[in-house]
């Protein structure tokens, strides 16, 4: 059992294990399909991530990332399908330059980017492996540092309270993050500048301007991690850092998160497809690489199916969230993630004036808890029915806090009374944290003391949602995930196989495709599995 779900919860919903098993079967078949599809492809963002693992950092004179410039050259030569690693390793080998200097030399035309001759192939492979293993060493160090922090300081009781900062200025964010930590936050997420997910590059450097959020950059990751390390020492508790491995740069974001010791990353291709209109072939391919990186780096991933309820009705569409959790779970497990790394998303989004809404939300949250007992689950607060009436909003959030603690959720996103108004003010978060802490303390063992009436409203609702999830999963299995997305099975949104952004950056792998990172990821994942076993 993982530290995130340490309390063994006695099942209370009398769910049929056979139906749950059939859901997993269907989700497993769906996931195997996706896995097969992705295994045969690479993308510009995967290749850029590979270069980052191999040590390429920084940008050219115009601040365009070197990894973009190098991979673009490979694309221009029509060689994306072979991957960039061998050609790049050969350039490093021939020049004796550091990876970043070699990349700069390539960009400036002083060094050629061509694949090794057949007789140099093995030598290039050795260099490529060596470079990738240096990246792996950095990731190992990050994992060790995190473990030591948590051993020494702990991270407080569950659910882990998760808040968001989003000032646009990373320096301002660090101050707000520290105030949050002091007020009890256990995970701090830095919301990205709006529409960053649609950029096909990761901006360079520390940034102080953004809209609705702060750009995710390697420098910003470092700055915030340092600030949270300081805050962790101040409050005597490890504070986790969260960002987004999503959008067109998903594999790179996961890589930067692994290198810079982020702890939690949002990662969900389905979210990008549905809500950001990113091409499904691109992002499902990218997601497999990203999830393997997260598995290797001990990151917790958060999935985004809770968002379906922002466009669909929360009561009617509850089963779509559950079905998506099953799919996300199976895809994640295939990528080497362990159950304790899965913050599967769900949310409290029902109309607060619906009679017995609280019971239905308890049923939903308890059901997710029982079906995914070893995963922390990421529980999202009300947003759809938040109005700007801060007084009412505080009550809605209090109900949410109560459901969360009584059903043993692992990761608890704090609702803000000012949801739907503006990015939270500094005291909005403090008040939300105060409320969540009060309620989770006051109701700490409520879940242990409560049983549901057999065949009553809560049990019946949970069973009904589970049964509908099974039907949906079987439909999705029959038409395939791509087909299901095209027919609008999730969030009432339809997306086509070739539509959306980023398809031009996908290539079917050539027969000789190879990169050294897949190998080091296998090693890191195996090491992690051994540790968990111990």
């Amino acid at each position, binding site marked *: 059992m993982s530290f995130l779900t340490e309390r063994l919860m006695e099942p209370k919903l009398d769910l049929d294990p056979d139906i749950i098993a059939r859901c997993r079967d269907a989700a497993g078949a769906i996931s195997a399909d996706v896995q097969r599809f992705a295994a045969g492809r690479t993308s510009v963002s995967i290749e850029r991530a590979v270069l980052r693992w191999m040590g390429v950092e920084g940008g050219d004179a115009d601040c365009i990332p070197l990894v973009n410039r190098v991979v673009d050259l490979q694309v221009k030569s029509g060689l994306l399908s072979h991957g960039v690693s061998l050609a790049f390793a050969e350039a490093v080998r021939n020049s004796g330059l550091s990876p970043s200097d070699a990349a700069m030399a390539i960009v400036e035309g002083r060094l050629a980017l061509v694949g090794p001759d057949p007789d140099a192939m093995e030598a290039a492979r050795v260099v490529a492996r060596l470079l990738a293993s240096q990246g792996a060493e950095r990731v190992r160090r990050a994992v060790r540092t995190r473990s030591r922090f948590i051993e020494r300081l702990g991270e407080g009781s569950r659910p882990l309270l998760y808040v968001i900062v989003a000032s646009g200025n990373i320096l301002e964010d660090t101050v707000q993050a*520290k105030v949050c930590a*002091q007020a009890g936050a256990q995970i701090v997420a830095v919301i990205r500048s*709006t529409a960053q997910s649609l950029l096909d590059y990761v901006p360079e450097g520390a940034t102080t301007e953004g*809209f609705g959020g702060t750009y995710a950059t390697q420098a910003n990751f470092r700055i915030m991690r340092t600030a949270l390390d300081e805050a962790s020492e101040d409050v005597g508790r490890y504070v986790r850092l969260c960002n987004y491995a999503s959008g067109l740069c998903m594999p790179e974001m996961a890589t930067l998160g692994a290198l810079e010791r982020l702890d939690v990353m949002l990662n969900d291709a389905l979210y990008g497809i549905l*809500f950001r209109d990113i091409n499904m072939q691109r992002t499902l391919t990218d997601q497999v690489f990203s999830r393997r990186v997260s598995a290797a780096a001990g990151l917790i991933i958060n999935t985004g199916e809770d968002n379906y309820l922002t*466009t669909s009705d929360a009561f009617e569409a509850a089963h779509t969230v559950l079905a998506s959790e099953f799919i996300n779970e199976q895809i994640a497990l295939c990528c080497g993630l362990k159950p304790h790394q899965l913050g599967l998303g769900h949310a409290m989004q029902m109309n607060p004036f619906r009679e017995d809404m609280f019971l239905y939300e308890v049923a939903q949250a308890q059901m997710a808890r029982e079906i995914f007992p070893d995963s922390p689950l990421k529980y999202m607060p009300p947003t*759809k029915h938040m*109005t700007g009436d801060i007084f009412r909003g505080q009550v809605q959030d209090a109900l949410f806090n109560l459901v969360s603690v009584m059903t043993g959720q692992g990761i608890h996103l704090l609702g803000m009374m000012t949801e739907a108004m503006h990015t939270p003010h*500094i005291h909005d978060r*403090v008040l939300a944290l105060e409320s969540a802490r009060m309620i989770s303390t006051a109701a700490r063992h409520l879940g242990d003391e409560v049983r549901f009436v057999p065949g009553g409203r809560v049990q019946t609702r949970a069973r009904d949602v589970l049964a509908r999830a099974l039907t949906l999963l079987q439909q999705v299995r029959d038409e395939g995930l791509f087909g299901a997305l095209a027919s609008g099975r999730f969030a009432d949104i339809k997306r086509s196989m070739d539509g959306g952004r980023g398809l031009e950056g996908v290539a079917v792998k050539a027969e000789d495709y190879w990169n050294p990172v897949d190998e080091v990821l296998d090693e890191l994942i195996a090491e992690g599995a051994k540790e968990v076993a111990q």
Partner: protein
Amino acid sequence: MKRDEPASRILSGVDLHKVGPYGDTLGDGLVQVSFSLPVPSGPESREAARRLAVQMGLEEPQIYKEADLGYGFSFWIIYGKCRHNVDVTRIVVPKLEAVQLSFDEINDLVAAEAGRRLRIVGACTGTDAHTVGIDAILNMKGFAGEYGLERYPAFEVFNLGSQVSNDILLQKVRDLKADAVLVSQVVTQKDVHLGNLAELVDMIEAESLRKDVLLVCGGPRISHEVALELGFDAGFGAGTTPRLVADWIAREWVRRKVLPA
């Protein structure tokens, strides 16, 4: 105050020339404010918070909560008596007429006067990703028990979704020969939505499309008055139902057809 406000809705004894906040006694002026200061809590910052409240126009400010948030911040909840008041009788606010037509009447009006469906393009523009507002108005399902515009036979709706740039929106308006454009701005930072909306008006004028489309904006921070200032034809704030928007579009379109500007 609406001129036709029934007297029965006005509290007896209230002086409409001097209206101020009400706590529990007419004229007490009581309000609460809460804010953070970028200084640690302590006697000096407490006095600073009190003086700020006085400068806000609050007499006898009472500090009920003082909290040190750490890292140089403090939080304050203060009650005080607002010494300002306003003469409600002198206020004139431009506003939209109340809804007059039903779902069927709107469809019938458009069928009779236009003889075709009116094309409506909607989007959440700029950096805003919150489509909850535009979806509530446009989606089939609607909001608050009323169907959204997609359900009206009178309209052909193109919902472009979120984070649409003004360029793209303009192009769609041109390509689809839109009769009305609905722009939603829900969550924005540092008033970026105002610049964004004004830019759209400029762009549409530059393309000489301004006379051909009804420009409508909506969102919790939008009012009809703000919309007019920005150069839009109408603005809808919080609590707007789809029928209110449908009614306005249908009647305004017809009015312009009959009485071109």
